[in-house]
């Protein structure tokens, strides 16, 4: 692939100046395949700008030389692997099971090696028909996740695979399968307080109203994406690579996002949904029928997971105050941006309640003035297609 390294570096500097709070991550294809000198130059630039660097890789090409670079430039290494053995059949050599098994073994060995060397390693596992469509497969996947845990890799992302391309779409889970997959993994991981697999932890934070944890649930403007911006090979700034599915790597519409999609979804697909303020119709790239004007095709799994998380939180703390309890809030995203938020534990706080309790009737203290807490609800919103900050340490 042709690229203009100098322009890419200039763009990184420019982007760092204008959008502090965003972090850089080198993506592919497979980014470790570019000439090593250029690879190091980009890692070095990330390190100079933000004190660390990040890549998303298939993990196959990792060797001692790369590990040396990762140490030098404090690289968070996100590895894409969908499980071990046959669960990972769509990666590497999909047409050759034997080669694929060797490929997966090598990736796994590289993950463990990096971990042993003290590299920050995060995992992205994409859920699809090959690794998550049945209980048998999910049990194997859980076993894989627990194997990682036993090697001190305690988190990553469990993203739902999606595509509008017929050939790839055959591997996409049905909404029901996707719900089952997330709920199965959520149920089986919640016993581990130290796990940080997403979206499970994020969904808890979203319901507690802390911030919109992932851009896919945060009113992303499809034509001016903010959670992920790409620096294209010629150095220009583009939109999130999820938008590249549509033939072109489109230019950005403007510097500032607008929210027409959310005005219409609130009146149509998502009208009256109790999780509107923690979902906003989901990622536009995943829109039903490949149309960004629709809500995400993953409404069912998102709704089911929120419902389950909400039920668990309420079961443990009946007095908890969640975003989903507030139908009167027109737009929690805007509320966060204006520096306001709900107070999830107010009935359990001695500062707020006369007789704090997690469950029984509580008399609240009179408030003199509502605190305004600035919340970064925009710039530091994580992007779900790479491990933004290295997840496993």
């Amino acid at each position, binding site marked *: 692939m042709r690229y203009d390294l100098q322009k890419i570096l200039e763009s990184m500097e420019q982007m760092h100046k204008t959008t502090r709070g965003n972090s850089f991550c080198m993506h592919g294809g497979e980014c470790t395949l570019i000439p090593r000198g250029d690879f190091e130059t980009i890692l070095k630039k990330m390190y100079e700008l933000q004190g660390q660097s990040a890549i998303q890789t298939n993990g196959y090409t990792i060797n001692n030389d790369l590990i040396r670079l990762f140490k030098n430039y404090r690289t968070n290494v996100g590895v894409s692997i969908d499980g071990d053995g046959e669960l990972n059949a769509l990666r590497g050599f999909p047409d050759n099971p034997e080669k694929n098994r060797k490929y997966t073994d090598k990736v796994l060995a590289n993950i463990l090696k990096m971990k042993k060397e003290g590299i920050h390693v995060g995992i992205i596992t994409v859920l699809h028909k090959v690794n998550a469509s049945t209980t048998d497969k999910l049990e194997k996947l859980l076993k894989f996740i627990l194997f990682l845990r036993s090697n001190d890799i305690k988190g990553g992302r469990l993203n739902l695979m999606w595509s509008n391309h017929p050939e790839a779409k055959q591997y996409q889970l049905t909404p029901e399968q996707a719900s089952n997959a997330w709920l199965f993994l959520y149920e089986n991981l919640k016993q581990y307080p130290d796990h940080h697999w997403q979206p499970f932890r994020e969904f808890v934070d979203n319901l507690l109203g802390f911030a919109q944890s992932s851009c896919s649930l945060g009113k992303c403007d499809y*034509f*001016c994406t903010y959670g992920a911006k790409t620096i*294209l090979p*010629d150095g*220009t700034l583009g*939109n999130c690579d999820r938008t590249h599915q549509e*033939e*072109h*790597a*489109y*230019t*950005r*519409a*403007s510097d500032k996002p*607008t929210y*027409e*999609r959310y*005005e*219409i979804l609130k*009146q*149509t697909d998502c009208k009256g949904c109790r999780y509107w303020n923690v979902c906003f119709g989901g990622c536009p790239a995943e829109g039903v029928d490949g*149309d960004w*004007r*629709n809500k995400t095709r993953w409404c069912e799994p998102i709704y089911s997971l929120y419902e389950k998380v909400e039920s668990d939180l309420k079961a443990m703390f009946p007095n908890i105050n969640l975003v989903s309890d507030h139908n009167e809030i027109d737009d929690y995203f805007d509320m966060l941006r204006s520096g306001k938020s709900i107070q999830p534990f107010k009935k359990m706080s001695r500062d707020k309640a006369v007789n704090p309790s997690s469950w029984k009737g509580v008399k609240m203290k009179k408030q003199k003035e509502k605190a305004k807490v600035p919340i970064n609800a925009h710039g530091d919103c994580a992007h779900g297609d790479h491990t933004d900050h290295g997840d496993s340490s």
Partner: protein
Amino acid sequence: MNDLKPFCKLVWNSVSLADEWSNVLAKAQDISFQAEYEMVRQGLREANVYHMYPNAFDKQIEQITEDNLVFLPILRSRTYSGFSHQHYPTEVLDSNSFVFGVVAENLEAAKRFRNASKSGDHVTQGLMLGYPECCSKFFTESWTKQKALDPCYETALNTLSHTVENDVVNVEGHPYLNQMLRYFGLRITPFFPCSFNCQEAIQVGEAWHLVMKCIDEDTTDKIMELLSQPLSWSLYKGIIEIKTPLFRGIVNGYSCDKRKELRWTGKMK
């Protein structure tokens, strides 16, 4: 569903296309506006709808007077950014508003147009603006009666040679009559034709094309090139999306009960 406020967004299919073509788009709107005025000044039609702005009215009046034309106000509207299918009447006249009115060759014509506008007589307005009667009647039917505020889809359905495949209307037509890119300033004729092959409308388009060429020949050639290219246009959930080989754009549409989609094959010249 409430209609969205006016907006207009455009993303280029690549940076090199943006470099090559964005200048054409920047000029196109001005050429269209100038052509609208020129068509009246040159006596090629009776009237022209005209926007008078509080911060430029002195120069605008001077030009109209020098050209021996007359202006009559019709309504005050709030300004908007992007593309609007209708005006937003207001009482206030300030920097956030403008006067929508008519420029005509004489006072009698201006009054006649204003009366037609106020009484909702689109056929008379259309005829005075130089549009074919068949197209003015079609517009009245689709815009007023069917509430199709942007009747590109309806025009496609009314074009004899159209085909329908999976609810998508495939249509070819004359680039003079392509109204699917006007949100970005790209058009030759400023009216909805009754059909994308309407011969009368194509004839009217000849005059507009010539006037535009006199204003800026190179840019007009480029506009014609863009209008001749294939594109897809869809109206869904109150948002219109247009995809072309060069760019993709979205603009506010209007509420309708089903998805409306057409593919312009863009051959005929």
